[in-house]
């Protein structure tokens, strides 16, 4: 089990620590509902230093990234990031990630902690063009400062105008007294804010200054439990739940990051799948009655016949109802259709809805 640099800080703040993706991580401080509401209404800070960071450099960096990712990285200008995924050779997904263009021929790939080793091996195996790869995962930390008050609360910590950074844009600049920090207008909550990438040796100073600056805005530390409810209210996929080695980006609703303007791993088969239509689709559903769908529960039709499984589910704190995602055959996937979630002895009716669940 690895520790993130600030694990003692989290324990001192009363965090409940749990093993997650090989790291000892804060899952909850004060309580998942309070933390959720803090991010929706004010500002909260997640330590997500377990995430992996790879640097891809050199004149062939873009060529490698175009080969391994599904989105079109040639569209990235310096200072822009994009959400993307790594398709495998057999129709599934190795991981989802964010690709940052740092310099002309320098890109940063941010990957899921649980997949650092797998992704590294995978990308390396596809690196026939001689791009330089560096795995910075053990030396970099990541804080996500999220919520509608994030810009205002953090502005005093930098000389840059935070409100001028567009969504999925970033700058490399000063923050909390540290130079060369990546300040990225990205996140996984749907409530706006930033992600701050810094060296492990710098993260304590940044954490402390962030909490000083945010004190008047009700800033709180937020655990992984609220991170999950926040992302699920937006319908963002979680690798290992909603997407994995056996789900295609087309059926997962990730067609918008799967660009056939270029060739990439398994692109021919994925393009065919897109043209012919997938056989199943990841749906978003809301329960019509009380109950909470959970990962692994069966989705059934009106006759009780199993048609799929819940991949993610929770009680949505902002909506106060049970919500979830899951794969079902296309015949059941239309918005407005009724499916049933088997919760113990009861099949609870649920309506297929359009994402996001939480509309702000």
């Amino acid at each position, binding site marked *: 089990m690895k520790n993130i640099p600030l694990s003692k800080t989290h324990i001192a703040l009363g965090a409940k620590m749990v093993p997650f993706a090989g790291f000892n991580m804060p*899952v*909850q401080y004060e*309580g*998942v*509902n309070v933390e959720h509401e803090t991010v929706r209404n004010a500002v909260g800070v997640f330590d997500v230093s377990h995430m992996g960071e790879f640097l891809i450099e050199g004149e062939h960096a873009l060529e490698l990234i175009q080969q391994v990712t599904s989105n079109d990285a040639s569209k990235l200008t310096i200072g822009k990031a994009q959400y993307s995924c790594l398709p495998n050779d057999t129709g599934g997904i190795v991981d989802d990630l964010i690709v940052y263009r740092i310099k002309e021929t320098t890109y940063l790939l941010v990957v899921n902690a649980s997949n650092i080793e797998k992704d590294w091996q995978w990308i390396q195996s596809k690196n026939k063009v001689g791009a330089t790869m560096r795995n910075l995962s053990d030396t970099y930390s990541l804080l996500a400062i999220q919520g509608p008050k994030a810009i205002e609360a953090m502005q005093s910590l930098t000389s840059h105008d935070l409100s001028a950074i567009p969504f999925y844009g970033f700058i490399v600049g000063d923050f909390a007294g540290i130079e060369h920090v990546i300040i990225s207008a990205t996140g996984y909550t749907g409530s706006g804010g930033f992600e701050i990438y810094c060296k492990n040796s710098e993260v304590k100073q940044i954490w402390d200054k962030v909490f000083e600056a945010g004190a008047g805005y009700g800033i709180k530390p937020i655990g992984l*439990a609220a991170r*999950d*409810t926040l992302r699920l209210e937006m319908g963002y996929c979680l690798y290992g739940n909603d997407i994995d080695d056996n789900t295609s980006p087309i059926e997962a609703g990730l067609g918008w990051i799967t660009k056939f303007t270029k060739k990439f791993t398994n692109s021919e088969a994925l393009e065919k799948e897109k043209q012919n239509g997938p056989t199943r689709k990841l749906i978003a559903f809301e329960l019509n009655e*009380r*109950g*909470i769908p*959970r990962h692994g529960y069966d989705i059934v039709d009106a006759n009780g016949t199993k048609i799929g499984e819940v991949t993610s589910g*929770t*009680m949505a*704190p902002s909506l106060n109802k049970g919500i979830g995602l899951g794969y079902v055959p296309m015949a059941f996937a239309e918005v407005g259709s009724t499916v049933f979630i088997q919760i*113990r*002895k009861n099949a609870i009716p649920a309506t297929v809805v359009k994402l996001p669940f939480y509309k702000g």
Partner: protein
Amino acid sequence: MNIPSELKYTKDHEWIRLNGDIATVGITDFAQSELGDIVYVEVETVDETLDAEEIFGTVEAVKTVSDLFLPLSGEIIEFNTALEDAPEKVNTDPYGEGWMIKIKCSDLSQADTLLTAEAYKKLIGA
């Protein structure tokens, strides 16, 4: 961690308050803090007679779901319906307003197998 000395406990983190042959049952302070924010308590066994250790209901927190086990054999005569609208009472007042069910016990000798506050304290390492 609050563990009232006058109550009995189970290894499943339930507490029992005996009054004659009527047992009031809830989950402990430790259990509610481990579960986190409780959003739903489901008990569909009222008027049923069950054996000790059978499942009488379910408690749903935001992140987890957990079965509730009957601590003593008997008939479930009452569910705390206040929890239908205010399940958070289990978090805020687990030994009071957060009680869950009342059982009419069929075999009071089973009560001897329950844990004392001291024994429960040891169990959870408090």
